[in-house]
């Protein structure tokens, strides 16, 4: 099935005006076996894309939940190679985006990573500590080997950097909705609509060809997801889902995914 995994752009086209739910799961948490089950059931419970996290020893952009889940995954022996095996075995019919920090990918070899990820059925990569333009050689090694490289935009991204981030962006743009690390929050992201509008206004392509905007960081409840989906094209939920997986098992994660999907697709 892997070869038939739809690339990210065609999935967005198929979605039309519908919004996308993009759950994040740490590969190998709480165990490799349960993680495989979680990937399949979360994907089938209404996900439009799935982000799969490769653990890194020093996750400096992550809050307590993802710190814990990635630490557990490391203790379970997860490596880039084993995460790709898991993605291959999961054989999801939604596009998979590999999310991690740069160093495990460097150690694996960037071109090899991109080729093997594509072969395992992944469609994109998101590297938390590789801001747009910081290392063009790494960016090229990812994109010329068949993966979309998801660019990040933050509230602090100024207009000049926004241009850099959007130039050559493929798949979607990931809007970090607020300052800080990943993790569930009680409040809604401030100025979300204005932030999304700013990105759309700066997009160089005609509206039909513009890259969609997915929003993440701190979105945990169906109500927050619904609000985010009114502003953006896609909604990423990570920490809340990992909390649900930790406390309620695969069924807990599946249940939350259903509720989030209903809220986002409404």
């Amino acid at each position, binding site marked *: 099935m892997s070869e038939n995994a739809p690339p990210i752009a065609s999935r967005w086209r198929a979605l039309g005006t519908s919004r996308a739910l993009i759950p994040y799961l740490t590969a190998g948490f709480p165990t490799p076996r349960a993680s495989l089950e979680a990937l399949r059931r979360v994907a089938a419970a209404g996900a439009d894309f799935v982000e799969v996290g490769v653990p*890194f*020893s*020093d*996750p*400096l*952009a992550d*809050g307590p939940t993802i*710190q814990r889940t990635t630490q557990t995954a*490391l203790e379970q022996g997860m*490596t*880039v190679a084993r995460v790709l095996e898991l993605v291959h075995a999961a054989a999801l019919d939604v596009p998979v985006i590999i999310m991690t*920090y*740069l*160093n*495990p*990918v*460097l*150690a*694996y070899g960037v071109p090899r990573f991109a080729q093997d990820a594509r072969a395992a059925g992944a469609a994109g990569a998101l590297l*938390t*500590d*590789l*801001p*747009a333009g*910081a*290392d063009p050689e790494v960016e090229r090694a990812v994109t010329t080997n068949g993966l979309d490289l998801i660019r*990040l*935009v*933050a*509230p*602090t*991204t*100024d207009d000049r*950097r926004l241009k850099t*981030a959007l130039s050559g962006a493929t798949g979607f743009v990931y809007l*970090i909705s607020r*300052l*800080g*690390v990943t993790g569930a929050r009680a409040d809604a992201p401030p100025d979300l609509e204005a932030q999304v509008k700013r990105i759309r206004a700066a997009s160089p392509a005609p509206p039909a060809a513009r890259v969609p905007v997915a929003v993440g960081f701190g979105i945990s409840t169906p109500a927050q997801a619904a609000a985010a989906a009114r502003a953006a094209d896609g909604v990423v939920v990570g920490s809340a889902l990992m909390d649900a997986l930790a406390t309620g098992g695969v069924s807990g994660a599946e249940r939350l995914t259903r509720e989030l999907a209903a809220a986002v697709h409404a």
Partner: protein
Amino acid sequence: MTVTETGRFGPYGGRYVPETLMHALEELAHVYDDARNDPRFWAELEALLKNYVGRPTPITAVPRLSAQVGAQVLLKREDLNHTGAHKINNTLGQVLLAQRMNKRRIIAETGAGQHGVATATVCARFGLECVVYMGEEDMRRQRLNVYRMELMGATVVPVTSGTRTLKDATNEALRDWVTNVTSTHYIIGSVVGPDPFPRLVRDFQSVIGREARAQMLDQVGRLPSMVVACVGGGSNAIGIFTAFLEDKSVRLVGVEAAGEGVASHKHAATLGAGRPGVFHGSMSYLLQDADGQVQPAHSVSAGLDYPGVGPEHA
């Protein structure tokens, strides 16, 4: 080595950080470039180094150690600075930059506590809020420095993640920075981290070598045949090496903590036994396993147990 426009020393250095921090790094680089070309900035810093820190620090001959090692040994006495270490050379420079950016809150990481004490002290001097992240293990090993930071009005936050040492304190400081970046300046204590930190910390520490070189010529009548410095992140080493780079007769020797031996995997020999990787915002040598996971460094010395090293050293 000269740093390129992209903030690299050859292949090393760069800005490998979450997008949220990019604007602050660009602003810092811009403010530093302005300050560097502003004689008033250096005049203010030099006056503080003289009248507040107590510079210049002397070089001291140590005849008994010299007899033991069979070479004339002189010590550059950075321990005689206010707060007891070279760290204050850098924290003063950076606090002046923070003022130019109107940032009233300062954060720092610390290993042994010397950088934390130096940061807490300059914050007290300039009336700025100060939060220092310190590994729980280091707080235990270096309790006196925790007391000194708190005495200066700083909040010391114990870090309980990972190895509970400098590496994890730096992670936690970076997490604070991505959360509070608009109001906060992060005073990194060594020549590590994303550009422009490695070059501005080097420039602020280069006073050590400028003084030492002049003192050697003045008091001993010659240059040293060798300059030896310990390397954790490498700020004191680069501070003294920089002045001797053009002196081909002077050997520059950086010493990393061997811990229980480089073969034991319990050491901090990043340059000796590490491989290039990306950690804490820059490309440099790094203690890591085959899968790119950062390995804990080991040394009895709090602060030398850092698995990375400054990109210019790399």
